[in-house]
């Protein structure tokens, strides 16, 4: 008789309350940003000049800014910019850097040497300065910022994904697949991608958070999306002048950004840890 028993399936550790609250918060921000135009918010760009720098009230729960615009409305519309730039740029970075990283780690050799060298060159360049220079030169429409930041994030993403892939590319299941006659594309997508995906996801979220901060930094230099479009960075930047008159102006966009970033980092980190634990059982 041959043994037919299998080990009982091990239960996953629950992800925890904080994780789900964070996920809920991120989801809510997404939802609000998408449906902003249909929920009867005040016009974010045209204010009521009679009501400048007012504190929170029934009509304006977050108060109004120096041009009498509703802050709640601007925070919600501003989320659009942060989300588009953050997720858009990381999507570009992940697609470019991730693909290159996986290919380089799997193929090694000349491809790896070449792309890695290029990534080092790009990394050696102060990214922020480069982004500022290109944005200032090319223009600061939202899609341009997204593309530029996306490309700027590519080398870093490349290094992370390459390292993650490398630890699997040398495992024997890859060799085994090769020995079965699997094509390179199949090995990359079927064998390696599922293993790298956890790294991709958690790094993606933390990357989005970094890009949102970058948008804030650009706004400080007046290089984020052009006025009057609201973005969290722009709002914080504009609030500088009125800090003593109207602290609400700084508080709400900062709070929105802060909570969103924390949520992103928490989710990314929890996912990474959860994957790591599963990993250690492999």
């Amino acid at each position, binding site marked *: *008789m*041959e*043994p037919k*028993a299998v080990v009982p399936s*091990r239960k996953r*550790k629950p992800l925890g309350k904080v994780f789900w609250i964070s996920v809920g918060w991120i989801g809510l921000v997404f939802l609000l940003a998408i449906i902003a135009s249909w929920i009867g918010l005040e016009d974010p760009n045209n204010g009521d000049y009679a009501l400048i720098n007012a504190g929170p009230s029934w009509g304006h729960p977050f108060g109004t800014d120096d041009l009498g615009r509703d802050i709640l409305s601007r925070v919600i519309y501003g989320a659009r910019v942060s989300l588009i730039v953050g997720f858009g740029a990381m999507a570009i970075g992940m697609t470019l850097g991730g693909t290159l990283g996986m290919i380089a780690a799997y193929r090694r050799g000349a491809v790896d040497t070449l792309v890695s060298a290029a990534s080092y060159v790009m990394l050696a360049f102060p990214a922020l300065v480069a982004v500022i220079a290109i944005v200032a030169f090319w223009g600061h429409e939202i899609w341009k910022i997204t593309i530029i930041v996306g490309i700027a994030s590519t080398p870093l993403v490349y290094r992370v994904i390459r390292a993650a892939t490398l630890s699997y590319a040398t495992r024997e299941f890859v060799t085994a697949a090769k020995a079965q006659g699997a094509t390179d594309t199949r090995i990359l997508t079927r064998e390696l991608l599922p293993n790298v995906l956890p790294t991709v996801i958690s790094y993606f979220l933390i990357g989005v958070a970094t890009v949102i901060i970058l948008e804030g930094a650009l706004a400080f230099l007046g290089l984020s999306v052009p006025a009057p479009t609201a973005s969290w960075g722009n709002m914080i930047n504009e609030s500088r002048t009125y800090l003593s008159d109207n602290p609400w102006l700084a508080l709400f966009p900062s709070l929105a950004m802060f909570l969103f970033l924390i949520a992103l980092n928490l989710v990314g980190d929890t996912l990474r840890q959860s994957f790591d634990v599963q990993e250690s059982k492999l």
Partner: protein
Amino acid sequence: MSNDTTATDAFPQAEDLSGPLLTVKDLRTTFSTPRGDLTAVDGVSLELGRGETLGIVGESGSGKTVLSRSIMGLLPRSKTTQSGSILFEGTEIVDAPDATLRDIWGAKIAMVFQDPMTSLNPVVRIERQITESLRLHTTMDKAEAKATAISLLGQVGIPSPAERVRAYPFQLSGGMRQRVTIAIALACSPRLLLADEPTTGLDVTVQAQILDLLSSLQAERHMAVILVTHDLGVVATRTDRIAVMYAGHIVEMASTRRLFASMAMPYTQALLKSTPRISDPSHTRLTAIDGRPPDLINPPTGCAFAPRCDYATEQCRIEAPPLRTAPEDPTHLFACWNPLQTGHAGTVTTAKGEL
């Protein structure tokens, strides 16, 4: 904890050379894991004389490593609970304060680990890794310690030790590295050397060299050795006594000759029969042990080996067999209701003494 602890604590008997070097009584080591409590060592008792070599064999997960680490007091305190007693030269190890353990580690009990690559610090020269414990436990100055390190490397068979002492671990081969870990373990002339799978992963030729080295060093220094391995071949010719472990219990213990000549436990026999031998003709069918060891979190009632045992009866599944002595040889202990040759007339003893 037993009463004799208090008596010996007051009068450390380091000079008393009579009596056993190590006495383990009813040791139980439990880890708390997310799935529940896991008793990795379950009621183990044994004695070890000075200069004696004890082999501990058993399948993976049988608790060999946990037992040897318990003896050294090396297990992490959190999530581990221990009961029973481990007396080393009259000092209680179970729940001993760190200061007591530090005086013992390296100086009186030393350990050789399985994987020299992870037990050696990769960025520290061999010299410092050997002299560290010398400087800690003896009054040697730097130069004396270095001279001792070089002589130790010579003793463990490393060619041109005076130059090699400056090397980093990665500059040495696997066998050389294991020699270095042995040199480190021997630095302070310990009374007891715990070698946990010291040759697993090494080539046969290197394995033979390392085992020969351990035997000769032990004879020279009159040092007791506990040799932990899963390979019956390794312990067959190099130990005085062998303890066979299964699922956290010692299931059989006897002098090496006696064990191989008339083993009583079906498990020991099964282990031996599933080992391929070079003296058997090729294509000899091996007798595999079906199934696998029990889950230690939910151990079965009765004999832990019963589900895999060819001799198991109803009694085996219901009642755990106690350790008893073979009638012809009082030093031969086994825990089985249906022993192979010894018959059923053994005197029943348990960890707490005669019943």
